[in-house]
């Protein structure tokens, strides 16, 4: 079971690969759209890559609740 730090760091790798986000900027309090500038199409890619990396299903109706990196970490932690 991955720790919150490990999940955050894993999301940082995905965000760098998919959207060119500096992994150092990825922290639990950061909003995907407002702080990290991830657009909706890139968010789809992030979700699919996160599903693969963490072995979790993230349904589309759940994605809209994942506003911040911390929201995603909490969801992955609870469902992986």
């Amino acid at each position: 079971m991955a720790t919150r730090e490990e999940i955050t760091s894993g999301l940082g790798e995905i965000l760098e690969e998919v959207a060119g986000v500096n992994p150092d900027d990825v922290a639990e309090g950061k909003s995907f759209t407002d702080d990290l500038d991830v657009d909706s199409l890139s968010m789809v890619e992030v979700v699919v890559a996160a599903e693969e990396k963490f072995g979790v299903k993230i349904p589309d109706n759940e994605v809209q609740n994942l506003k911040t990196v911390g929201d995603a970490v909490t969801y992955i932690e609870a469902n992986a």
Partner: protein
Amino acid sequence: MSTVDVVVTGLGATTPLGGDVASTWDAMLAGRSGVSSLTQEWAGQLSVRIAAQIAVDPSEVIERVRMRRLDRSEAMAIVAAKQAWADSGLEGTGLDPERLAVSFGSGIGGAITLLDQDDILEKSGPRRVSPHTVPMLMPNGPAAYVGLEVGARAGVRAMASACATGAEAVALGLDLIRAGRADVVVAGSTEAVIHPLPIAGFASMRAMSTRNDDPERASRPWDKNRDGFVLGEGAGALILERADHAAARGATVYARLAGAGITSDGYDIVQPDPECKGGIRAMSMAVRDAGLTGADIAHVNAHATSTPAGDMGEVLGIRAAVGGHPVITSTKSMTGHLLGAAGALESIATILAIRDSVVPPTINLDDPDERLDLDVAAFKARPLDIPAAMNNSFGFGGHNVALVFTRP
């Protein structure tokens, strides 16, 4: 003849001979071939294992994350258009974006994206298909991206007429300015289909050279031993501008785009009319549109792709429409056939021939076809005074486009 003069004020290209216009033109004048062996694993199974691959990969110019969202044809279109835009000096001149249009095409479009994403669909399922798939494969993608790059708001037109696409996009640009719909048009075309499926398709038509053991000598327009075209990839872009607009800002003008002729054969979906009737009409129309006569055309950059069926009809056509005097060349002998991008790249070669008073060579013309009764600049660039020149492009579907450029 139109009362509105249109000039060319910027050029950009990324080709098998170079990553920009200057390196491409230098290589052309030196008679260098851009054709090489396909060493990719997938090429092993094909009957055609040669192509004219781009000299500078777009990923060397466009950053990685952006490349993920672009089809290769779109990336190359952006590279060429950005060069042309910078070359024109229009940035920061206060050009009204609502007077700036784009006319940009592709012969085949985002085929590589379609095929790659289909592989993902088959292997990993629909959820893994990229959300960028549609804007990557849509045929208007290159035009739309060029429009975004320069901020064009007078319309973004996407042309598709197979191997005549680039020339037809330039012709549409001329029409848009003459009709008063724009003051400046970014015109051009792009093609990126060096992939097993398009190659297998053309190879099944027996349209491609299989001279796999001698790639640099495979593209040999008008030579007796020509055995088909060599697939190339790349993009070319031209900034077309209303002449008085260019003059008012003191722009450097390469040439005048004096006329265009567009016809269709109504003959066959892929076979060229052996008498080149549609081609003759296009060439005659372009000369008339330019307010010239055939005698004024000193040089023709021919379509001549190195296929047994196509090359000689055009020779008949040039003789009938223009006369027996022009010095002709096929730069495809060096660049391969860039399909939809050919007309854009060859327009650039035609313009630079006028500017530098030199006809780029046709390489590999070791043993000319007996029916070749026009003067070809064979093997070596030919110094020539060129007040006016023509560029021909013909495409599957029976599309014929001739463009006439003159000195400014």
